[in-house]
């Protein structure tokens, strides 16, 4: 059964299309990672799900309720931690939690919740004096009020230190074990990878890929094969380049590095190296990380298809005015440039896929 059902959802802000015919589902009990660069449309999707804004076209249902006409019923069963929230400076942490309980019509032990999120000593302090991390912990506590059937978490690790992030992951796992469905929106891949059963990757308001992390890895399976040998003759490199499925071949003093798509290609490359009699010593393979899947999906060709794999085109799309917040687009582009993703993308998206 699906907890969240989104069909052909489109949201336009003037001439800007933030969501473009978006469709996906989140199943009951799963931890769904909603990934995407800044400005991809993640928060817009959540804002529609919780009634902060209305879709231009398409439909969205949560627990079978229409998000526009039955929003209150949805929020009774949902705990949310939304990006861009602010606390009430003049209310204490306990009053914040109690406020959430009152709104949901449930009785809670506010102190126990504050203890669970790691700020038991702040119960009687006004939130205006809290650090960012304490505010985030309190907001997570508010989201947990009433044991919600759905947790919507938008960038929940913002402001948390490493311990807080670890505790957040543990809370998410506990909530998942309890039976809650978790919708985890983030641009931090390691956070998503650590807790999510399934991920959907959003780019320019479109779901470019969706599935189990392992399935996505399989779709991208251009893993790296590193073979340690005693000598590296040039003829071996040329021979390896002819193996079907091998994409790139390079070498250092005693190591051959092959990028190959599929297990058969890697096996054939290994056989060629062994037959070449170059003193085969050892080999390692590296599967693509979720980070690579993310980069491939948001900047590269995983989503673009065989005729749309040019890196510069992807970059143009990210920088272009056609979708989302222009500032966010620039940030995403800058971030891509900062962590060398553009170089990586350029190396792997040349040619058809």
């Amino acid at each position, binding site marked *: 059964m699906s907890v969240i059902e989104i069909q052909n959802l489109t949201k336009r802000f003037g001439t800007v299309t933030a969501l473009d015919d978006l469709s996906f589902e989140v199943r009951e009990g799963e931890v769904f990672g909603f990934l995407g660069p800044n400005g991809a449309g993640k928060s817009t999707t959540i*804002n529609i799900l*919780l*009634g*902060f*804004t*209305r879709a231009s076209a398409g439909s969205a249902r949560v627990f079978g309720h229409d998000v526009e006409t039955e*929003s*209150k*019923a949805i*929020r*009774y069963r949902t705990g*949310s931690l*939304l990006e*861009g*929230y*602010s*606390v*009430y400076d*003049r*209310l204490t942490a306990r*009053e*914040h939690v109690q*406020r*959430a309980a*009152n*709104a*949901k*019509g449930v009785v809670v032990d506010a102190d126990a919740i504050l203890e669970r999120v790691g700020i038991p000593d702040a119960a009687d302090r006004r939130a205006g004096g809290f650090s960012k991390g304490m505010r985030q912990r309190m*907001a997570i506590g*508010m989201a947990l009020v009433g044991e919600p059937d759905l947790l919507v978490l938008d960038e929940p690790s913002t402001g948390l230190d490493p311990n807080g992030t670890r505790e957040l992951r543990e809370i998410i796992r506990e909530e998942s074990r309890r039976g809650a469905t978790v919708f985890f929106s983030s641009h931090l891949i390691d956070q998503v990878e650590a807790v999510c059963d399934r991920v959907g990757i959003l780019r320019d308001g479109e779901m470019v890929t969706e599935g189990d992390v392992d399935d996505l890895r399989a779709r991208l399976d251009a893993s790296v094969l590193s073979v340690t040998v005693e000598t590296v003759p040039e003829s071996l490199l040329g021979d390896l380049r002819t193996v079907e499925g091998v994409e790139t071949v390079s070498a250092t003093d005693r190591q051959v590095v092959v990028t190959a798509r599929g297990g058969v290609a890697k096996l054939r490359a290994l056989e060629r190296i062994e037959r070449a009699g170059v003193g085969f010593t050892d080999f390692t393979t590296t599967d693509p990380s979720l980070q690579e899947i993310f980069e491939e999906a948001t900047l590269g060709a995983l989503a673009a298809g065989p005729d749309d794999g040019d890196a510069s085109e992807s970059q143009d799309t990210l920088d272009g005015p056609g979708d989302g917040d222009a500032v966010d687009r620039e940030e995403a582009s800058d971030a891509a440039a900062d962590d060398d993703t553009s170089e990586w993308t350029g190396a792997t998206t040349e040619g058809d896929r």
Partner: protein
Amino acid sequence: MSLRTVVEDDLLRLRRSPLGWGVALSVLAPTAGVGLLVVLFELVDVTGGPSAPFDNIMMAVGVLLSFAMPFIAMLGSYSAIVHERESGSIRFLLGLPNSRLDAYAGKYASRTVLLSVSVLAGVAVLGAVGFGILQEPDVVELVAFLLATLAFALVFVGFGVAISGSANSLIGATAGIIGTYVVFRGGWMILQYGVLYVARGGENVTVRPLPDWYYFLGRVNPINAYVTILVDVFDRGPRTLARQVLLTQPSPEVNTLATDTVFAAFGLSGWLVVVPLVGYLAFRRRDLL
């Protein structure tokens, strides 16, 4: 349950904020403050004669309120929604199971409580002073004054919350309440004359008698409606200062419902209902990002 939660939370925050106390004191100053001044003058016996008539003091307070109350009431309500939106706390307010109606009505109710309690306290002091010191106090007049002042205040609470729900920023809301005040305080007269100018083709614009609709249009203004009620309750002289300064005098031959207290009360009631309703309808479908 949600509506009550919104009201209680907003009242709690108002109680802890300078805004709540500032608004209450701003209402108390021209009401209870005037009452206390009367007591002070009586104690030092400034005039050396009999104490002032109840009607005169109440009329003076009413005139003060006719200028101050619109702004005080809007000041106490203009940030109700837009501040939550600008700060981001609206993510909590509407992320919890509170409907837009809960949020809007709750904010309106809490700001109504703030202004009503302030007005009640101020009028209670005035009543005590009136019945203790002043000449010819009248309980019916006092109740009429209280009801009219409450209605007058709540009309502008309605404007403040409606502007708050429609504005995208606090600056925008501030401009909205200033604009609203200017329109009702001074701009309305220009509007009346503007329509009269057009209706009379630019000639003999101020020649009396003025048409009935001119008075209807004028007394629809909630400030004018409030003053109309004050004059009817407290000011019995035909050519008193309040009448001269605050309201256009109908010509003797003009006998229209527009200048009657009933129409003024009807006008205030209309604003009381229409403004919050229109404000909610505008807020209901807004994108709150």
